[in-house]
Structure formats: structure tokens, C-alpha cells
């Protein structure tokens, strides 16, 4: 029964306590991260531009031999010096960037698409397909890229195309593993079940539900992978199994410069430095992408 006495009790009134003012955060940590990202992005853009239009920066032919001007230190004429055959280091480095980036991009794309397809399907379908696919993944991960390259190059000879194939074959398993585990998690989510109960076919579910949710991880992985591939390519070229001469490759330049480390350090040093800077910026970019995409992703859930 309601209280029938609706007589108003004596009310005393006092103002509410004021809320503390909040200043927006100084975001010192975010500032640092921002700078990192911008730097990495700047380096990446420069490299890409060099790769696309090297002619804008260098006029000299990277393969032009000039035996009269070998082992020249950096000077006004040759900004980065010349190598043991008198070729201009600057042009070689710039054209080398083009080769490296091109190879890396192709290899990462090929490996990524192949790996993701296998991974997502294995993760979603499970069962026999998953078991077989994962065993193949294990095999790939166990094979060193160098051995693979040796065999392939030994069989069909060195070429750019073979290099890209080798790099892809040595790399797709990483994508498969990660996308598979993403697919496994996604498979249990309610929206997948609801789609199935609405009558969706497995293909439709994989394409419209699983794949779009794996994309974020894929992008981050691919970006981080670029650095790995570049190093791998340099390694193979260093061993003579990669980019065939006379095309410049940072790896082969490092190999060439080994003997001249004390006398003409720039033949080895400059490409090495370029390699380091490129890989570093690729990694930073990948990290920044992950930080950028992940908070959105977690807000999505």
C-alpha cells in the first residue's frame, strides 16, 4: 500500500559539489608515438618515390663501369663514392631500393594472399583440411629459405622471377598461422552462427564475415613482413642466389664490399645503412598501424 502521507517533509537545500575541471591529457606518450609514425611514414614515402622514379634523383647509369674511377670515396662528383668497378654508388643504391621494394612487395603480396586463403579456410572449415594444411605449414616453417633458394636456383637458374617465388614460398606459412587463429576465434562469434542459421553458405560466411575481420591483422602482418623479406632478399643476394648481376641489390653490394671494408667502407656501409633504415621504418610503420587499427578493432567489439 502506498504511503498515504504525502505531506512534504522539511527540505534543506545545499548546492552540489562542483566537478573538478579536467584538462585534456598532455598525451606525452602519444606525442612520442606520433613522431615515430611520421618519421617512419616519411622514410617510407621517400623510398617509394625513389623506387618509382629513380631517374628524378640520379642521372647516372648504375651499371656503367668506369675502371678509371674505382674505389673513389664520397665526393662532389660521386656523392656516395664509387665501387670496385667504378660504378656510381648513389645510383646503385637508389636503383637497388627499387629492386628491393619491388621484390618485397611482390613476395609479400603473393605470400600473404596465399597464406591468408589457406589459413582462413583451414581455420573456418577445420577438420581434415585444417590438419593437412597445418602440417604443410609446419613443413614450410622448418625449411630454411636459403636451402630452398639453393635448390631452386640450382635447378632453374637465378632470376628475379625465381627470387620472388622463393621468397613467397619461404614466407606464406606465417600468414597462414596467424589468419587461421583469427578465423578460429571468429568462428565462435555469434554473428557467424546467426549467419549460418539464416542459411548462408560456407563460402559466403568466409568471404563476408571472416575475411573482413581478418583484414586488420593481415595488413599489420604484411607491413611487418616487408622488413623481413627485404632482409631475406639481401641475404640471398649476398650469397649470390638472389638478384642476378649486373642489377644492383643491396645484398650483393654488401657482398662485393666485404673485401674492401678497410679501404673503401662505403661500398659495404652505405647499402647496409640503407637496409637498416628501410627495415626499421617498415617495422615502425607496422607497429604504428597495429596501434592505430587495434583500438578501433577493440572498440568494434
Amino acid at each position, binding site marked *: 500500500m502506498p504511503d498515504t502521507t504525502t505531506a512534504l517533509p522539511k527540505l534543506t537545500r545545499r548546492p552540489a559539489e562542483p566537478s573538478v575541471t579536467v584538462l585534456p591529457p598532455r598525451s606525452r606518450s602519444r606525442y612520442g608515438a606520433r613522431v615515430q609514425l611520421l618519421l617512419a611514414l616519411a622514410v617510407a614515402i621517400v623510398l617509394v618515390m625513389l623506387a618509382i622514379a629513380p631517374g628524378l634523383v640520379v642521372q647516372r647509369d648504375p651499371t656503367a663501369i668506369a675502371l678509371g674511377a674505382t674505389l673513389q670515396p664520397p665526393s662532389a662528383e660521386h656523392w656516395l663514392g664509387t665501387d670496385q668497378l667504378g660504378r656510381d654508388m648513389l645510383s646503385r643504391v637508389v636503383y637497388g631500393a627499387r629492386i628491393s621494394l619491388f621484390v618485397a612487395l611482390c613476395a609479400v603480396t603473393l605470400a600473404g594472399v596465399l597464406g591468408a586463403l589457406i589459413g582462413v579456410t583451414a581455420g573456418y572449415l577445420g577438420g581434415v583440411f585444417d590438419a593437412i594444411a597445418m602440417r604443410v605449414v609446419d613443413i614450410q616453417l622448418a625449411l630454411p629459405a636459403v636451402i630452398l633458394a639453393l635448390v631452386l636456383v640450382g635447378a632453374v637458374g637465378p632470376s628475379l622471377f625465381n627470387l620472388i617465388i622463393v621468397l613467397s614460398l619461404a614466407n606464406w606459412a606465417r600468414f597462414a598461422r596467424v589468419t587461421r587463429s583469427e578465423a578460429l576465434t571468429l568462428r565462435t*562469434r*555469434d*554473428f557467424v*552462427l*546467426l*549467419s*549460418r*542459421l*539464416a*542459411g*548462408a553458405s560456407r563460402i*559466403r560466411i568466409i568471404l*563476408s*564475415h571472416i575475411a*573482413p*575481420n581478418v*583484414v586488420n591483422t593481415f595488413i599489420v602482418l604484411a607491413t611487418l613482413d616487408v622488413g623481413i623479406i627485404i632482409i631475406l632478399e639481401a641475404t640471398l643476394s649476398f650469397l649470390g642466389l638472389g638478384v642476378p648481376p649486373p642489377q644492383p641489390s643491396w645484398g650483393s653490394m654488401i657482398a662485393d664490399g666485404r673485401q674492401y671494408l678497410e679501404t673503401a667502407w662505403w661500398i659495404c656501409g652505405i647499402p647496409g645503412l640503407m637496409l637498416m633504415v628501410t627495415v626499421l621504418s617498415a617495422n615502425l610503420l607496422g607497429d604504428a598501424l597495429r596501434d592505430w587499427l587495434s583500438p*578501433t*578493432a577493440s*572498440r*568494434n*567489439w
Partner: protein
Amino acid sequence: MSQAFMQVEGLRKTYQVRRGLFGRPKPLHAVADVSFDVQPGTTFGLVGESGSGKSTIAKMLMLAESPTEGTIRIGDHAVTSMKKQDQARFHRELQPVLQDPYSSLNPRMRIGRIIDEPLRIHDVTEFGPHKQRVAELLALVGLPPEAAGRYAHELSGGQRQRVSIARSLALSPKCMILDEPVSALDVSIQAQILNLLKDLQARLQLTYLLISHDLAVVAYLSQRIGVLYLGEFMEIGNAEDVMSRPRHPYTQALIASVGARSGGASANLVQGEIPSPMNPPSGCLFNPRCPHATERCRQEKPVLRDFGNGQLAACHHAETITFRSFAADAAEAPATHRPRGTNL
């Protein structure tokens, strides 16, 4: 007596669980011999705690899992004996709404595409162009038409649940399985969704199967209630009968547990915890915790008996147990009794 819309007979789901690497598989009876009817346009509420089997029943009715035994009839069709391909048609008749509003929507899809996905899958044109149908459905669940262009993370929990309901209604099903539809929502939002569901049922002549652990929610929406414990029905009946004159001690305990909190009178306090479904008690499943249990309850499993007006209870002593309703003041002699032995 009008033909029931949904008829479930002898539904059973047994899992074979292997303990350890080399152990022999032991059967786990998640659902044991469950039968009930649902009249068209009404709500049947399944209430139970953990281990009661209610989620398993929901999954079987959604056709997400197949029963070990038993038949399900929906409309005029015996669903369980259909082939997989024909069962796909029944997804048009029957749609689920699930518990978790955060997991039910694809975060990378726009709301409009989420809602019209069933229409695209079945290539349905009878409701007009998809865009129009989506707008209709959004209006039906109380969302503005702009919602179609948004992503799930821009909506609140209650709004996402509305989107789930809209998607389930896209193909104009006759029946909805509601599996804990409001449990994951804030208290002030629950009423919104419950009222929406009630409203939709009246407007669209929907039949609901409502599953919840919350008896108050079930009582609010259902015309008939079934109380589950460890995979079996302890009591079934009309909502009024079950709520005001419960026959089974477990139902009484559920009502008293919560009712007592709202100021209800003394209740028969249930001791112990729900035993593991792997090790069900002998005889009556509830006997180890029942304050009225006798030797007979330990030996002999009671069957569901009719107490009139469609109320069934599975208890040997249902006639002799008196349940004090909330209105009565408690003035009985203090208890002299013993905890029966908890299940650990």
C-alpha cells in the same frame, strides 16, 4: 484445442565425454526426455539455472545442433526427420535472438547490410526492395532510419539488440527463439527490449520460446512456463499457476529465492549447489537439496503428474507440500532441520 505451433516430444541430448586421454567416454545427459507444446502466438518460457540444459534445448530448436533422440514439429512439419537441405527452409520460419549484443553483429558490416543479409541469401523480393524492407524493420524495432549506415560499434548495447531483432524479423518468421535476450543489458534497458518483444508479438502474431535464468523476466512475457533442472522438467504449467501455486519444491525455491529478496515471506531454503550433470543424483534429481526429500525420493524418480489446468510437476510429495506465498506472514515454528548434504 487448436493445433500447437511447436511440438517437442521426448527431446534428448547426450554428449559422450571422455575423462582424460585414456578414460572411457561417459555419457552426459544435457537434456533428458523433454516434451512440451507451444500454442501459436504465445510465449513459452524455459527457466533454469546453470546445467539445466536450457541453452542446449535452444540450440536444438534453432537447428544449430541435432538431438540425440526426440522429435520437433514446427508448423506441420517434422523438422528433425528432414534432410539438411530442407531444414534450411525452416530457417525462414524460425529465427533466434541471442544473448550477447556485442558478439551478434559483424563489426565490419554496416547495420543495413547486417539486417538485409537474410534477404540477400534467400534472394527474397516479396517484401519489396531490400532498402525499403530494411527501413521498415528499423522502424519496427524503434531505431531511426539513419542507423542503416552506421557500424555496430557506434550503437549502444540496447540498440544492438534491437538490430539483432530486426535481422531476425527480416524473413518474417513465425517463431523466434529468444535465448537470454536481455541478460547482457543494463537494467534500465531491459525493460525497453522486453516491451519491444511484447509489442512485436502482438503486432506480428509471433510465437516465442523464451529462455532465461531470470524467473521474473520469464514470468513477464510467458503464458506457459517450464522449469528445468539438470536437463529435465520439474514443473510445467500456465504462468499464473506456476507463479502463485507452484507444486515442485524447486520452483518454490526459485520463487522464494528472489521473492524473499523483494520482501516475500519465509521460504524453504535450498541447501547445497547444483550437482554436476556428469554425476546426477539417483532418484529425483533434486533430492539432495530438497528440504522435503524422503527415502522414496532417493530411490524412485518421479514422473510428471497432472495437477489440473495443464499444470504438471514431477514430485512424489507435491500434494503435501504447502508453499507459503509472499502475502502470508511467516509465523511458523522455527526450523529444526538439517542441511541435506551438499554436493561437492
